[in-house]
């Protein structure tokens, strides 16, 4: 349990840094130049980490299903959707909506145990928890008239 919480926290902190740094690169180039660079470097880093921790095992991929090779496209879909969402809406609204649907779909995936997830039974508690989080997102994002840095879109 604790390791899971720690890993989720580490991922969140790094996503924050990465989004800020990516937006710095984005200022000088463009969305697709930045995305190509980020995914290329992420690939190289995963390859190196895999080789360090698992040696040759990194290349023994076991039984892959065809769709595994297309899952990377989801990341491209994320970029297309968020870039257009931010362009068409106020960034603050776009990001609030994206965060809301992130948590909403997570609850849906857990409750149905989709894609090999361990099924977490849906309870009223879970629904209330998610609703309080979503309300928190809107209080955080929409009040106080902060200017958006456009640095919070998640592209990983």
């Amino acid at each position, binding site marked *: 349990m604790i390791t899971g919480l720690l890993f989720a926290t580490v991922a969140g902190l*790094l996503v924050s840094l990465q989004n800020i*740094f990516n937006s710095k690169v984005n200022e000088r180039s463009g969305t697709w130049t930045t995305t190509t660079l980020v995914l290329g470097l992420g690939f190289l880093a995963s390859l190196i980490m895999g080789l360090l921790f698992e040696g040759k095992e990194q290349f023994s991929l076991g039984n892959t299903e065809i769709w595994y090779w297309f899952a990377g496209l989801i990341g491209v879909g994320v970029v297309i959707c968020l870039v257009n969402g931010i362009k068409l809406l106020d960034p603050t609204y776009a990001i609030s909506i994206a965060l809301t649907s992130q948590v909403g779909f997570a609850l849906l995936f857990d409750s149905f145990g989709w894609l090999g997830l361990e099924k977490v039974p849906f309870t009223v508690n879970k629904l209330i928890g998610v609703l309080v989080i979503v309300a928190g997102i809107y209080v955080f994002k929409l009040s106080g008239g902060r200017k958006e840095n456009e640095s919070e879109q998640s592209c*990983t």
Partner: protein
Amino acid sequence: MKGILFSFFGGAFITLQGVANSRISQDIGTWQAAMITQFTGFLVAFIILLFIRDGNWQSFKQVNPIYMISGALGAIVIFSDITAIQQIGATLTISILMIAQLSLTFIIEIKGWFGVVKQKMKLPQFIGMGMMILGVVILGF
């Protein structure tokens, strides 16, 4: 309306991506899953780049190299995301990830680190953060 749909699906895809990565890692391993999904994503982004050409490699010369290599962090992000989803499920993982992400971005904006436009600390942000943490506590019980 279109903007709302784009944003909605953007968020849905982020969750789908985490869960799909976690499923793939059950068969081939975690670093392997991070490697192949980023590799195929990179290929497709590169093909799109060939058509759209929204920047050139020259433009990278003006960017601080530290900002540029941050893409490598993606490996650790995906590894951590997969591990967390397997241990505590998607809902808790994504909620905690989100709180950590918003908190650090908030601190960076207050301090104006990395040349980010400085923002003032305001009460609603603290209340919002408190509500998100309360929501996670409710989720956990």
